[in-house]
């Protein structure tokens, strides 16, 4: 309803657009008749007049500029600083995505070794749509806690069986997605914290190896670093990488939560000469990995491929996937039993997983979230009696101990986090990872931006985060009354009745005849 003081932007800009050439003429006259110094303003308004003519009558790309002239630029200016304005001024503590200010703040404080206790009360909904941990009336005493220890490959009796002593590991982030300073900071931090780091699918882990931490080599669908010319596995190259003493395990990536059913994506803005060489790709197109391993076209061939990688690498070998179709996963389990080939671990990535770049439809709408996916994998393995033949890792927005312990109660033996560690490095959730413009220098190869990320000062943050998160995890474990994380089950969780982990496909399969 128009009131006497309302602003009609169209009228305002029409007045301004009229005023500009009028002022040009006025100052021209003033310069001629009053003082030559007025011509500074004459020139300015002449330029603005010409600019406005271009905006309103010549260019056709920007309608706002055609209709509003010079003032229309305000929209584009404000739009471009919109994300920053929202993050700094307008969003509340729970609003930002993917991680709210509250969630990020917890990680930042753990990384800086600042107490992250909160006050007054939780900001959550408590409307029975959220999962909670059931605590016990009889918490476990500290000395009754069993120290955490998970050994991959023990089921097969491998000499190269690998033991981790902390429940959190750095999940896959390739060199390419991250810049070299970020990779090295994470690797150095992993060494301090004594946790392994997943190399991501970027090929030969040149920068990861520089810092001496334990590595999990990821074999993505493009098989960077271990591929033949036509995309098959180059066994010699794999054996060579696996022989590196720092490489402790191999993870075959079938899919990831951020873009399940699609291969990895590295935008061309981020392909430096070095990356083009390390991966064997050209610089002028996005690097798109194939959606699946070329050898893995059937369930039978998939299991055979797992066996081959296990043999060639002679290391604990598992695979990573985001759960899609439960029946397919069951067929995989059945085939594994038939061939007597079991991965040493399965990493379940929830659809809420992160990435440097992914098509929006895949990022938002494809794949099962972590809770139902992990629950389904765990249930399926148990149904076929093979759960004890391998370990389960979980990943997907597991940055805070609250969520981490829920994943463990749902069946995970260990936790992978990627963005938790990026936040520890100082990530501010600018959401620019794919543009090569990361303001913190983490997901960019621009040397000017990477200069801000100093490895020596960032690496300790990683160790702090792991140490403080593990401390919280232990306290949570004690609160449940269990003595070790392996004792946790779904009974330790309050799971709201009609949400979160019930999957109709899984229910149908579980109630069918066991094979």
């Amino acid at each position, binding site marked *: 309803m128009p009131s006497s003081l309302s602003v009609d932007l169209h009228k305002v800009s029409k007045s301004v657009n009229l005023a500009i050439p009028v002022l040009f003429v006025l100052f*021209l006259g003033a*310069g*001629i008749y009053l*003082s*030559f*110094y007025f*011509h*500074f303003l*004459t*020139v*300015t308004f*002449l*330029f603005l007049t010409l*600019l406005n003519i*271009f*905006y309103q009558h*010549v*260019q*056709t*790309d*920007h309608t706002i*500029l055609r209709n509003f002239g010079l003032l229309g*630029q305000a929209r584009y200016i404000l739009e471009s600083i919109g994300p920053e304005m929202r993050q700094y001024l307008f969003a509340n503590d729970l609003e930002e995505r993917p991680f709210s200010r509250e969630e990020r703040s917890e990680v930042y404080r753990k990384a800086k070794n600042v107490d992250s206790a909160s006050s007054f009360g939780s900001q959550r909904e408590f409307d029975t749509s959220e999962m909670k941990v059931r605590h016990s009336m009889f918490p476990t005493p500290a000395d009754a806690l069993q120290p955490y220890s998970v050994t991959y490959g023990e089921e097969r009796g491998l000499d190269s069986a690998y033991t981790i002593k902390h429940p959190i590991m750095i999940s896959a982030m390739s060199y390419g997605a991250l810049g070299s300073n970020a990779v090295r900071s994470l690797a150095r931090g992993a060494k301090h914290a004594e946790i392994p780091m997943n190399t991501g699918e970027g090929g030969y882990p040149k920068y990861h190896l520089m810092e001496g931490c334990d590595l999990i080599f990821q074999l993505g669908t493009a098989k960077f670093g271990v591929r033949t010319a036509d995309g098959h596995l180059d066994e010699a190259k794999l054996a060579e990488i696996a022989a590196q003493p720092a490489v402790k395990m191999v993870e075959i990536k079938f899919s990831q939560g951020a873009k399940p059913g699609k291969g990895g994506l590295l935008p061309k803005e981020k392909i430096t000469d070095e990356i083009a060489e390390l991966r064997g790709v050209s610089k002028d197109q996005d690097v798109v990995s194939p959606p699946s391993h070329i050898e893995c076209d059937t369930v039978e061939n998939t299991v055979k491929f797992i066996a081959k990688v296990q043999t060639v690498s002679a290391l604990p070998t598992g695979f990573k996937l985001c759960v899609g179709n439960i029946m397919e996963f069951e067929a995989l389990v059945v085939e594994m039993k038939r061939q007597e080939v079991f991965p040493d671990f399965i990493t379940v990535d929830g659809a809420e997983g992160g990435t440097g770049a992914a098509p929006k439809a895949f990022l938002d709408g494809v794949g099962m979230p972590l809770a139902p996916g992990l629950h389904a994998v765990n249930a399926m393995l148990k149904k076929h009696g093979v759960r004890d033949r391998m370990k389960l890792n979980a990943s997907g927005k597991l940055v805070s101990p609250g969520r981490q312990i829920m994943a463990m109660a749902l069946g995970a033996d260990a936790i992978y986090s990627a963005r938790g560690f990026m936040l520890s490095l100082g990530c501010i959730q600018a959401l620019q990872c794919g543009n090569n413009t990361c303001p913190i220098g983490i997901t960019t190869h621009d040397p000017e931006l990477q200069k801000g990320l100093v490895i020596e000062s960032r690496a300790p943050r990683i160790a702090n985060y792991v140490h403080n998160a593990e401390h919280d995890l232990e306290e949570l474990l004690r609160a449940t009354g269990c003595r070790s994380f392996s004792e946790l089950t779904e009974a330790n969780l309050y799971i709201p009745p009609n949400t979160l982990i019930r999957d109709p496909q899984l229910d149908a399969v579980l109630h069918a005849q066991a094979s």
Partner: protein
Amino acid sequence: MKASKLIWIAQLIVVVILGQTLFFKFTDSPETVELFSRLGMGAFGYKLIGSLELVACLLLLIPGVIPWGALLGWGLMTGAVIAHVTEIGFEGPMGQLGTMAIVAWLLCALIMYVRRSEMPLLRCINRNEKNELNS
């Protein structure tokens, strides 16, 4: 850099045109004093203009800020052209100076146009050529 070598030649020409007056301006030469007094501007005036011309010359040579130098140069030359047209005319030595001012003015406009993708206000004029083909 999308601009070719030709644009650097244009930039250098403008730098020479603007730059060669600087000596006269900063040494209070009689020609400068006389010229500017016809415009009603004293020492402050031509030293100010001279400083701005110096800044324009520098900007025109530093990659990344070249279009800003062209904008500043264009502005100064517009003032010069206005001065010639309205006060000092084109006879005698003014003819030579006036011609150089017009040349620099045109070249600065050209530099701004060619390098428009490097300037925030002008980036939207990018696809004019294609649009003219369609219309």
